[in-house]
């Protein structure tokens, strides 16, 4: 029941939203070189993964190529963001950052495990990306904000093909989905931990990043037809 004069609350009334960071400092640019690289590499991974998935379902190649082209467009946009700030993206760092997920995806691909491929790309990487973009938009420089808003718009407008595929095949792919999730969700958690300090320099709060990820992840799993308890069981892999 609402009481508007609670002393605990009153103490917090003066809190205000934080101001934007100074985009010109060396410490900002240093952190940005890694965050920007992660974003660029993430989009590149997405592009490559969709093309690769097309080899497993050749009749869907055209749709997947369309998706891959969009990811490439996003990659170019984010590359421009780094250039705009005079920052050189640390691509070797980003390659290593995605190494775990990349390796697991390639392994699944070679074994023809479509469900695992879609879980890694269409659920985990997509949710990771969109959650980071949502948090970043609030603290980005004006140029990057515009680019990122466009990317987010794209992500909401395009059909998440992998999600649709998992939904249509849920009866037969659930076991593999759970197993793949158990192996890969902890990687997302450790990726977030790894990037937390740099994200903080960009005023992107780790707690907020994690929450945004969990929201996007939960939304995707709900969309493909899992119930709350199944999602809770899957999410447990991120905690332990």
């Amino acid at each position, binding site marked *: 029941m*609402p*009481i508007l004069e609670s002393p605990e609350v009153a103490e917090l009334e003066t809190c205000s939203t934080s101001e934007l960071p100074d985009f010109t400092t060396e410490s900002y640019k240093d952190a940005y070189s890694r965050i920007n690289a992660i974003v660029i590499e993430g989009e590149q991974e997405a592009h490559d993964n969709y093309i690769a998935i097309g080899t497993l379902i050749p009749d869907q190649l055209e749709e997947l190529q369309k998706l891959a082209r969009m990811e490439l467009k996003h990659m170019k946009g984010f590359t421009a963001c780094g250039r705009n700030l005079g920052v050189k993206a640390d691509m070797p760092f980003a390659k290593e950052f995605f190494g775990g997920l990349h390796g697991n995806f390639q392994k699944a691909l070679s074994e023809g495990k479509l469900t695992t491929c879609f879980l890694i790309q269409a659920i985990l990487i997509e949710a990771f990306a969109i959650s980071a973009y949502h948090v970043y938009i609030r603290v980005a420089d004006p140029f990057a904000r515009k680019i990122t808003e466009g990317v987010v718009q794209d992500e909401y407008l395009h059909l998440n093909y992998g999600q649709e595929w998992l939904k249509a095949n849920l009866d037969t792919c659930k076991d593999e989905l759970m197993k793949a999730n158990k192996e890969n969700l902890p990687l997302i958690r450790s990726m977030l931990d790894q990037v937390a300090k740099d994200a903080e320099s960009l005023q992107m709060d780790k707690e907020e990043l994690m929450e945004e990820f969990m929201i996007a992840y939960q939304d995707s799993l709900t969309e493909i037809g899992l119930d709350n308890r199944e999602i809770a069981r899957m999410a447990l892999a*991120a905690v*332990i």
Partner: protein
Amino acid sequence: MFGLIGHSTSFQDARRKAMDLGYDHIAEGDLDVWCTAPPQLVEHVEIVSAVGKTIQGAYIDSCFVPEMLSRFKTARRKVLNAMELAQKKGINITALGGFTSIIFENFNLLKHQHIRNTTLQWERFTTGNTHTAWVICRQLEINAPSVGIDLKKARVAVIGATGDIGSAVCRWLVDRTNVAELLLVARQKQPLLDLQKDLGGGVINTLEEALPKADVVVWVASMPKTLEIDSTNLQSPCLMIDGGYPKNLDAKFSGKGVHILKGGIVEFFTDIGWSMMELAEMDRPQREMFACFAEAMLLEFENCHTNFSWGRNNITLEKMDYIGNASVKHGFSTLNLKTQFQAAVA
């Protein structure tokens, strides 16, 4: 469909409830994990009113716990994310329960209408304060005489008089009752003076001045933690209506002649097949609920899909009449003091 956005009364309760519901990943997590937990639509319910109208509803746990109050950004996110979920689920009218409406109001969340790709439609939400204010007024009118207080001769103190609910209660008392004297208590002077002018009456008092002389005390502000009250200095009989959140008056006041009633609580005429009011520690969780939650149900019963209670000090007597009539019509009654017999059985 109507919606209720709520939360557990403590972190410990929240973990226990999450475990019961099978949300192990949250249940086993520490407070930091809870800070990153998305809101959960935990329960759907169907309710048939006393006049036979059937509505559907949903309970959304915001995953907020009072221990997060000092984390400004976390608290803000919890409320906004829960509201976004309610809207995404297509819920017509959702009540903000517990601390969520306090956070919405005090952190000025009106500034945050865009959540990810959702633009929050304020008309889908209500604080439920109009119904709460009406229920508190009715509780006062019904229960004061039952403990031997004649309202015509009584002094009534409203603690938190300038708040949304408090000011509505004051307007009702001045216009609809014949209380002998109305004592206005709040933290800030100027809003008190403004209220006194609007009401055309009432006496401004400090808490210390008001308590010993009030026959009825309506608490619609949280009590200062440091407040020490000597119950022997209170009137006897004295009716205390605990309209604050959380409800903790009974821990502060006791003694012969002091009657404490949980304020702003209603009881439905029949059991509701839900489990979520256990979270709010209701005595009869199948029937009892916060009046603010019931307001969302009433608006759905009446097909009145609008932010009926919104902003501060917008509660009119006409609106209180409207929601009060709907409340009675659809089968709600106010929570009242137990008779001695009931208390003995309990």
